[in-house]
């Protein structure tokens, strides 16, 4: 049975200059090209008001389906209401929103959790069964808070007395992460695991560790995202960088487009489509990606084979409790 294809899909991205979203967009465009239509992107650039404006513009331009990664989940509620009034189908990417129909998302908590389990195993094996964690976090976003929580819960399954020594706000960017980590390590350097909610954060933490003149011998660094080349470089060159929680942004984009097409055809779509994530250990990334110079290519077969859970262990809704 042949699906009708939309003519144009509009994507309002949270922050297009970030590599994660660059790869999401890449996944979308690739998939749309396969299916034979166009994706247009507008960038909210982390501005909640601009996001609404961009969506408004798309609606007046007459796109067929909207895909939105909210700058903030609560801040798009009225937008969903307006879209409903105008019969504009919307696919959300990221986190659930009151009044949404369809969400494509990774499970942030689960991502952190599984990386935590692997980190716990590593700690048992190489770090004498101790885990003293410095969390280079980002309290600003519920997604990143979930990752940190998941990581701690996961690591405790293996190392029950794992503790979070530092809970930092690294702003999600490398220089701020470096700065706060340096101060935290000076205050208490008794840490053997650095967890970063994204690669900038984990790398900022690792650089602070190195700048403090500490050896990487008894250290484990865990990064999250795996969207660019940074983590590959780190895994290759830094002895302590062992675990990367891969979130496959291209796959997210791919899935979002499929959902958009289904919505456009008024098919039955689950309200929550989970996009897979998995921890990659050491060289494990080579299974999913190949690198040639500065170009990273995704190995679709391997990524498509990663199984996604039907349901997330915890979501942003659990945080509010």
């Amino acid at each position, binding site marked *: 049975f042949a699906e009708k294809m939309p003519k144009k899909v509009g994507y309002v991205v949270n922050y*297009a*200059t970030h590599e994660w979203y660059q790869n999401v967009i890449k996944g979308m465009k690739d998939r749309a090209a396969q299916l034979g239509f166009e994706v*247009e*992107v*507008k*960038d909210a*650039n*982390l*501005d*909640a*008001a*601009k996001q*609404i*404006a*961009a969506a*408004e*513009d798309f609606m*007046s*331009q*007459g796109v067929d389906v909207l895909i939105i990664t909210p*700058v*903030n*989940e*609560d*801040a*798009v*509620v*009225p*937008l969903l*209401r*307006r879209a409903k009034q105008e019969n504009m189908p919307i696919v959300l990417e990221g986190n659930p929103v*009151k009044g949404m129909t369809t969400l494509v998302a990774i499970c942030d908590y689960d991502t952190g959790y599984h990386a935590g389990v692997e980190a716990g195993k590593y700690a048992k094996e190489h770090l004498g069964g101790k885990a003293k964690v410095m969390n280079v976090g980002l*309290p*600003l*976003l*519920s997604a990143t808070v979930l990752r940190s929580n998941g990581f701690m819960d996961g690591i405790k399954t293996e190392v029950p007395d794992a503790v979070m020594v530092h809970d930092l706000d690294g702003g999600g960017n490398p220089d701020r992460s470096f700065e706060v980590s340096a101060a935290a390590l000076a205050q208490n350097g008794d840490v053997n695991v650095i967890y970063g909610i994204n690669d900038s954060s984990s790398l900022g933490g690792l650089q602070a560790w190195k700048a403090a003149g500490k050896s990487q011998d008894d250290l484990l660094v865990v990064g999250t995202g795996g969207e660019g080349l940074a983590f590959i470089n780190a895994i290759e060159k830094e002895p302590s960088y062992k675990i990367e929680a891969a979130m496959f942004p291209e796959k997210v984009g791919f899935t979002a487009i499929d959902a958009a097409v289904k919505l456009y055809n008024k098919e039955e779509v689950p309200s929550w489509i989970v996009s897979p994530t998995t921890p990659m250990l050491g060289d494990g990334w080579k299974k999913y990606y190949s690198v040639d110079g500065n170009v990273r290519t995704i190995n679709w077969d391997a990524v498509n084979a990663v199984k996604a859970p039907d349901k997330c262990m915890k979501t942003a809704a659990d*945080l*509010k409790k």
Partner: protein
Amino acid sequence: MPQSPSLSASGSASPGLARILFRRSEIGLVVALLAVILFFALASDTFLTVRNLTNVLGQASLAMIAGVGVAIVFISGEVDVSVGSLVAAVAIPLITVMNATESLALGIAAALALGLCVGIVNGFLAAYLGINSLITTLGTLFILRGGVYLYTGQKAIPDDVMLESFFQLGNGRLFEVVPYPALIAFALLLVFAYVMRHRTFGRKVYAVGGNPEVARLAGYDVKRVKFTCFIISSLLATVSGILLASRLGSAVHVAGLGFEFQVVAAVVLGGVSLSGGVGSLFGAALGVLILSFLSNGLGMLDLATEWQLVITGFIIIAAVGFDEWKRRQP
């Protein structure tokens, strides 16, 4: 020769709307705005539609309302950059009170009360204690943003009662065409433009900004005038904050990040001098519109964000540079 913001040389015509609108210094801005609109009308077939134009008016209204207040503070010879955090902060009492009382009016009153307090603090520090206003408001910008994060624990506060009236405020349209925020912005602009030109308070603001010593010698209470300007600015930013909260349906801790840059850039683009005493509210409003249409149009062209940033940067330099050049011509 720059045209003065006060009586223009044409002798007898009554100071009506037309004369206010067609002051010479603003013609350049009107032309620039028309050029922007014309360019995008030709470049994109979806730009010049009623729907899109009214969209932009609605989107511009937030910066316009706050911009009127910031322009008034600029004209008084001071600076207010705290508006970026204020628009986020006022949403907290607004939403919290609405959630508790289910009353839009009480929510708005609470928001205005917070705005008033911030205005009083800014005004007191800058006007009465004499602390440089850029420092003062940079300080309150940080303090308010940090306060919002602390209070909310860096989470948005959702609107639980979902009043239709609140939704309509920022999202509704008069006759399904003109967005309410645009109407509110236009009304406020007219009111304050009238005040700045036809009430003694407005003239005092120009005088105080033009030359505070002279204003003092003329018997003005310079501090009180400046103090009042800060309050006006905060209250107008509060109105922007309320409309923004309605559009976002919640009190969002990250709302308005960088809003102050946007507003300041637009107001200066509109010919309001940072050194005080010069400029008009219509100019400031035109500055806002130019930047809004530019942003909308560049978005229509399907340009990457980075190009939009680069182009906007160059256009600001070109526009202000041209304005300065024109001003220097005999």
